[in-house]
């Protein structure tokens, strides 16, 4: 997420840090470079310009000159400015405590509305809401089928009508929700161009008819300069409450997030990562700003892990680590938990300092599949005490898992190394364990 942008800013910031005192000249140069970084990252031309002007104003002021470490101060100023552009503070969804809450999903074609609607429904149902998905995209072929299938896969009811009347579908869905004891209505509308007056009129009507607590504008994070125009038009027409950034698991620089946020003045509420239906995160501008500056996103990683980790399971694991009893059974559980959290590459991207190191590393998501297959081919006994794994057993496991003996051997060897590291981790804490295991590779 915003990796390239953070990498480039990181490089620029390093330049500043390497210099002694900030002169007017070298600040100007640096800011020019930052401007280029922002434009390359698809930050809108005007937004980038304003950003640079603000930073210049502050950087050339008294505080910089009197500062002991000018590099740190500039980093701070850039961080603050970025945070301000991204939204200042974090904003949650408005949900009615009683009665039906309506959430209207709008945006351009192909931005990811339908997938996000399903993800949001799942997220809300995880927090004990009873969502209803409403298929109001009557234009795109099979859009209604798509929502129905997604709804079925996550056990969320989907409301649709045979009639080609989006206004009516939206309006009737509210009664359906009330009659069926559902408390959160998520209306998935058709993608539309902001210049299409007829369709913009339709979505404005739907808003008026359903009186939603939240109107969310879904935008593809790969969007370029025009993001400000479409966001502005949608905002003028339906006065949306928040922004959803999708496809953030790609390598887009995501500069449109800064642009839209600063042009329409609405908060970015969600980040939608990947095609798995639980890959949706709340948006935290401060974290994103710190991530842009290459500081990583430990907090997000921690939270993401917490949502999935069962406390008891974690306690058990810690106990096992302490007693050095971590076995293949536990390993398999860990793999499953990690898979639930999303792609491995998205997890790695959140660890501070690691993003530049891992830039060229190709994370093989399929490695997990093979590891799982190998462990699944082991007997319970073998999983609990890997020591019994002799040649014949290894051969059988390789056959059973469709892998090779070499792969099985490699896994067993890596597992032994991991056990070692895990026990050190439990005893000395993570930092020390990493220091002592420089040669450890997970691949």
């Amino acid at each position: 997420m915003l990796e390239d942008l953070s990498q480039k800013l990181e490089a620029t910031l390093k330049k500043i840090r390497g210099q002694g005192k900030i002169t007017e000249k070298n600040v100007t140069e640096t800011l020019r470079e930052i401007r280029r970084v922002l434009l390359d990252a698809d930050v809108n031309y005007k937004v980038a310009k304003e950003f640079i002007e603000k930073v210049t104003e502050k950087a050339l002021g008294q505080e910089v000159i009197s500062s002991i470490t000018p590099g740190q101060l500039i980093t701070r100023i850039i961080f603050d400015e970025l945070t301000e552009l991204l939204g200042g503070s974090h904003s949650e969804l408005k949900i009615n405590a009683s009665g039906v809450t309506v959430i209207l999903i709008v945006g351009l074609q192909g931005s990811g509305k339908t997938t996000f609607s399903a993800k949001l429904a799942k997220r809300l149902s995880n927090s004990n809401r009873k969502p209803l998905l409403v298929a109001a995209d009557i234009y795109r072929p099979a859009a209604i089928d798509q929502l129905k299938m997604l709804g079925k896969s996550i056990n969320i009811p989907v409301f649709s009508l045979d009639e080609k009347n989006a206004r009516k579908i939206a309006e009737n869905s509210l009664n359906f929700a009330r009659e069926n004891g559902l408390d959160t209505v998520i209306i998935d509308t058709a993608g539309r161009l902001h210049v299409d007056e007829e369709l913009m009129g339709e979505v404005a009507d739907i808003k008026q008819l359903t009186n939603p607590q939240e109107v969310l504008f879904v935008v593809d994070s790969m969007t370029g300069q025009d993001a400000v125009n479409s966001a502005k038009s949608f905002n003028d027409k339906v006065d949306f409450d928040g922004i959803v950034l999708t496809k953030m698991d790609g390598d887009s620089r995501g500069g449109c997030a800064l642009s839209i946020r600063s042009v329409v003045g609405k908060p970015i509420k969600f980040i939608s990562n990947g095609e798995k239906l639980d890959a949706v995160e709340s948006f935290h501008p401060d974290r994103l700003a710190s991530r842009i500056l290459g500081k990583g996103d430990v907090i997000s990683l921690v939270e993401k892990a917490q949502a999935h980790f069962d406390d008891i399971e974690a306690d058990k694991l810690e106990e096992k680590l302490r007693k050095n009893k971590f076995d293949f059974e536990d390993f398999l559980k860990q793999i499953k938990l990690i898979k639930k959290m999303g792609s491995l590459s998205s997890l790695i991207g959140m660890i501070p300092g690691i993003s530049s190191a891992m830039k060229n590393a190709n994370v093989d998501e399929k490695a997990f599949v093979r590891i799982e297959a190998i462990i699944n081919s082991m007997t319970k006994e073998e999983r609990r005490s890997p020591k019994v794994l002799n040649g014949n057993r290894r051969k059988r496991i390789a056959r059973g898992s469709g892998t090779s003996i070499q792969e099985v051997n490699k896994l067993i060897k890596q597992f032994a190394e991991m056990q070692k590291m895990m026990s050190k981790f439990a005893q000395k804490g993570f930092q020390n364990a990493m220091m002592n295991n420089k040669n450890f590779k997970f691949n």
Partner: protein
Amino acid sequence: MKLFKNLNFDKLRDGLSKTREKIVNKLTETISGKAKLPAEILEELEEILVTSDIGFDTAIQIIDEVKIKLKSESDRSEENILRTIKASLVAVLEKSNSYNEFLPDIEKYKPFIILIVGVNGAGKTTTIGKLAYNFKKSGLSVIVGAADTFRAAANEQLEIWAKRAGVEIVQKKNGTDPSSVAFETVAKAIKENIDVVMIDTAGRLHNKSNLMEELNKITRVIQKQSNNAPQETFLVLDGNTGQNAVLQAEEFSKVANLTGLVITKLDGTAKGGVVFQICSKQCLPVRYIGVGEDIEDLQSFEANAFVDAIFSTK
């Protein structure tokens, strides 16, 4: 054989009219108001170009060219500045748009196989629907393969387009190996002597190595079935996309032998300026542009008309 014979460039111009008006209005405002060609105008030009998603470096490059060209000329009128910029932009596009016939010899290749690739939500399926309609209309038999076996209802979506275009479709259950769909589609086309095959693939972000590998496999499967196949591999780009489109073109060309681009959603205010950069860096021609959701809203791309449409005044 030339497709889209009765191509109507008015529609293309309509599609791009918002773009054109914006740029031309800006140019007229800035240039006619000032006597010289000072820094402010150049900056305005920079803004116009950058906000069209042309890319910062490309914008600077174009402006530098214009500066140099104008230096030796006394004529710094609005017309001349426009003419100069236009020439520079056309030159960028022409570098990669040297061909002019779309289907060189269908009998020779029969079946003529087109693979459609791109990131999620770019407009691949819609593009296939429109292409199928055009091929069919020009008297060719067409079959489409629904090799997006991943996304919910992708099958159904293509099926509806196939019905609208009146062409055959091969589809399998969700979760099937997409290469097997591609294989069956091509096999059926060979067996039934069908002219054109189009394979729709799942949207994939270009940084997902496993999905890109899957695409590579689809390509290999098609290659094995027919010589020189796929004859065309089109990368579909959302016209709203910013600089990331350049990376998309780079990454997709690593796993598939890209032969052209289709730029979609150009009926909004997005400028599709990223075309210039991809053409200059990747030497990939733009074959079509999408200008709406109707089955007829696909236009052949033509460099001069494209640039003319951006800059010509009504």
